[in-house]
């Protein structure tokens, strides 16, 4: 019996390793091959304190956790600013260095390991046998599981997944990606340190080979076998890999040495096969017990009150959203007819949606700007300049965005339009000039800081988080959620869940505004390209930013959808938004009726309506080449 309990205990310890690594690898998408090395930091700290200083079990483990937290945070600081390859490289290096220090440092026992570690001890009682240790390990395992669950299956975890899917897009929504990466790396290392300390106490031995790169790989295998971003999977993975040892040794009777080699060979090979055939692992992300029993617990999105109203309005106009607008051209072949129909439906849609939005919360500016007042420019750009090597992409641009208006930015390919958006939002650093957002110079601020000040951009290539649902994409964009920081998650659970309900409601409203509420629970990857573009508008809206910079919202969009996009964009000023659109589709801009800046070769050369542009010989030539 003790033999079996011993195996279960080992599973519990390795499950702690796997659970924490899953946060890093599965949720946040950061590869690390130093997980066992952080276990070594904790394990050796605890072992040293126990063997050499005679410190008790609980305090040594606590110190071990803190040590590995600090080590993990410090070690990751430089690499997390860089691409994922650098983190792999740095953790690789960290792993080598930890093992060589341990071997080189005679006080830590050298190559043979550190002996003389005391028994696990609880309230003055030694825990000599596996069955004595089991309850303690089980409790600690459950705590770690609950902790990881809270982090992973919460707004925090949603954010981690967004980082995994697209770091740049996450930053564009105002999230400080770097800080989150450091936090999750630190937390992950701390848990690895805990597991390492428990492992060392459990065996009363700390030895270098127990924490080598190969052990890190086996922990990665646990996570990947079980399923990335699925915590139950990690426990299953840990069980499979730990049990494989005794199975090969006893049942296949290979003998201890051969069994160990076969075990590594087999799970290495299994990793390769799995990556080729089923990279999502045994229990994929988003599947849980509830998922398996889905016929019993059919999860439905609570439909917001808005939706029936909205669809009633749509039905009244003879056009249910969103297929309606897409079907419109077929119903009314004449282009003008279609546009009118679009206008009617969008008018209705806006009225309903906008009333709700304005009632329920302030978005950007509190009062809707009336057409009568003179509009202050919200964004004032002067003398902006940027060159890449010898090419001046933006050459002294002056530009104003008047509050509550849609302004177009047009010009031939390569004129510098997208570069301009990059410069406004902190993705690129201008060489000279000022970008004043409501009087604050945002030049040199990071994308997330600029978003926090109220200006966000969308991307020409949408950059929706494909592995998240449409609703999650939009919920994520909401600023200042208490569930996105550790303090909120663990100290104010009530405020987290009430915020989560509110954020969800808002997100559904934004999705209703762009006509996508029915597809809220779809994975974004399943949406048509045009729908993704609409969802991207909902996502920038959800940031609450006042200034929205939309990069080619209709490029690559099926012509049938263009009217829907136009309707949505025309509705934005009524929500208090100031909008700038980069666009090639002039008919679209004309429909919106936006005044346009005309940009050529890095310079603004005219400001005109699309109509004026069409009649001006020179501009027409610059744009169309005819």
């Amino acid at each position, binding site marked *: 019996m003790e033999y079996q309990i011993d195996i279960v205990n080992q599973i519990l310890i390795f499950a702690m390793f796997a659970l924490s690594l899953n946060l890093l*690898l599965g949720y946040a*998408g950061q*590869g690390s*091959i130093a997980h066992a090395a952080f276990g070594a930091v904790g394990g050796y700290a605890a072992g040293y304190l126990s063997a050499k200083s005679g410190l008790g079990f609980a305090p040594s483990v606590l110190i071990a956790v803190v040590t590995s937290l600090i080590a993990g945070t410090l*070690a990751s*600081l*430089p*690499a997390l*600013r*860089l691409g*994922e*390859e*650098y983190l*792999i*490289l*740095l953790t*690789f*290096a*960290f792993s*080598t*260095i930890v093992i*060589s*220090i341990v*071997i*080189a440092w005679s006080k830590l026992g050298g190559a043979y390991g550190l002996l003389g570690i005391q028994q696990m001890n609880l309230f003055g009682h030694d825990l000599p046998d596996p069955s004595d240790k089991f309850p303690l390990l089980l409790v600690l395992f459950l705590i770690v599981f609950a902790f990881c669950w809270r982090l992973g299956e919460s707004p925090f975890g949603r954010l981690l997944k967004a980082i995994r*899917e697209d770091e740049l897009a996450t930053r564009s929504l105002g999230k400080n990606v770097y800080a989150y990466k450091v936090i999750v790396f630190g937390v992950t290392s701390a848990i690895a340190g805990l597991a390492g300390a428990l492992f060392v106490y459990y065996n009363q031995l700390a030895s270098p080979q127990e924490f080598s*790169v*190969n052990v890190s*790989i*086996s922990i*990665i*295998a646990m996570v*990947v076998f079980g399923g990335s971003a699925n915590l139950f999977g990690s426990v299953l993975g840990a069980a499979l890999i730990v049990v494989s040892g005794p199975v090969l040794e006893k049942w296949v009777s290979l003998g201890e040495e*051969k069994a160990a*080699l*076969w075990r*590594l*060979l*087999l*799970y*290495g*090979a*299994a*990793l*390769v096969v*799995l*990556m*080729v055939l089923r*990279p999502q692992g045994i229990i994929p992300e988003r599947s849980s017990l509830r998922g398996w029993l889905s016929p019993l617990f059919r999860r439905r999105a609570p439909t917001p009150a808005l939706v029936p109203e909205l669809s009633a309005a749509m039905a009244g106009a003879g056009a249910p959203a969103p297929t309606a607008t897409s079907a419109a051209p077929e119903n009314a072949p004449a282009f003008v007819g279609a546009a009118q129909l679009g206008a009617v439906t969008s008018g209705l849609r806006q009225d309903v949606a906008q009333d709700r939005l304005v009632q329920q919360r302030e978005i950007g500016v509190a009062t809707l700007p009336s057409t009568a007042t003179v509009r202050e420019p919200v964004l004032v750009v002067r003398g902006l300049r940027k060159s890449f090597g010898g090419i001046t992409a933006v050459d002294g641009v002056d530009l104003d965005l008047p509050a509550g208006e849609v302004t177009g930015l047009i010009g031939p390919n390569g004129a510098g339009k997208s570069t301009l958006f990059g410069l406004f939002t902190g993705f690129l*650093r201008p060489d000279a000039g000022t970008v004043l957002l409501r009087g604050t110079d945002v030049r*040199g601020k990071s994308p997330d800081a600029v978003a926090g000040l109220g200006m966000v951009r969308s991307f020409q290539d949408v950059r929706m988080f494909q592995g998240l649902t449409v609703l999650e994409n939009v919920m994520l964009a909401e600023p200042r959620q208490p569930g996105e920081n550790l303090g909120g998650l663990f100290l104010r659970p009530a405020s987290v869940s009430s915020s989560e309900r509110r954020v969800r409601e808002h997100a559904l409203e934004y999705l209703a505004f762009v006509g996508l509420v029915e597809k809220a629970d779809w994975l974004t990857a399943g949406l048509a390209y045009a729908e993704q573009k609409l969802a991207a508008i909902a996502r920038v809206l959800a940031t609450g930013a006042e200034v929205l910079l939309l990069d080619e919202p209709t490029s690559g969009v099926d012509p049938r959808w263009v009217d829907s996009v136009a309707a949505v964009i025309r509705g934005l000023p009524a929500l208090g938004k100031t909008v700038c659109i980069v666009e090639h589709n002039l008919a679209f801009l004309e429909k919106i009726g936006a005044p346009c800046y005309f940009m050529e070769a890095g310079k603004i050369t005219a400001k005109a309506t699309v109509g004026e542009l069409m009649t001006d010989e020179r501009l027409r030539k610059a744009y169309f080449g005819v």
Partner: protein
Amino acid sequence: MNLHQFFQLFVNGTINGSRYALLGVSFALIISVTGRFHLAYVLSYTLAAYAASSTADAWGFPFPLAALAGIIVAIAVGVAIEVVVYRPIARKAGGSALLTIFVAALGLTIAAENAIRLTWGSASENLSGLPRNGLSIGDVTFTALDVISLIVFWVLIVGLTLFLQRTRQGRLITAVRVNPEMARVVGIDPDRIYLLVFAIGSALGGVAAILFTVKYAAVPDMGLDAVFKGFLVAFLAGTASSPTRIAGAAVLLGLVESLSGLWLKAQWSPLVVFSVLFIYLTLLPLDFWRPRRLVSAFAR
């Protein structure tokens, strides 16, 4: 510290650094062109060494033939990994394949190491056939093998540079590295270029492994340290840099690692290597080679 010790460590550092250079150049070629984080480079490296020593041992191959066998095995392994593992994963995962490929490469690495232990045992395997007599300049000693290795490493590095610059195939490789989409548009088949790159990179790694085996011995886990050094050098220099720049960084790393022995015991030299990497990565986002950027980064 005395002058003799300095020169001896300098020579050792140059020899090691030149080996890192060949590894770094080949690894950088693979990652910059194909984007695959090819940790399973370990396989090509280790199996080349074992193939050479086994064919020499069991079938009595003379050294040149055994070395050739090793290099062919290295190429075959590298190309097979690309075709059987990496390419299908990349097809499936698209742009986000880096981590998946990396995990698969980890799996290959660990499986191969243990397959080698099961086949050949965990003891070391030897390979002879190159002169290893000691030479000296003044007090500084080295072996004929070191001189041969040095010549081979640098001939290969310069040869690769010339190949990439001067030949049609080489320019095709550069084209795919710089812009795979455009390369495809003008009719270059990236898949074929990838295979070529894996073949070249694996062959160069095989050469490094065989010379290492002649100098020391082949052991099942010999590949990990070699690949680590290759990674390190490639990233320190920038994976898209020219082979000469990567080789320069490698020699510098070899020297730093070796000369640290003037002050530290040899077992601490990994700590020095790690510190170099850590400092470099800390400074990297600050663009420290552009002083103006540095000032503004601190002012932020």
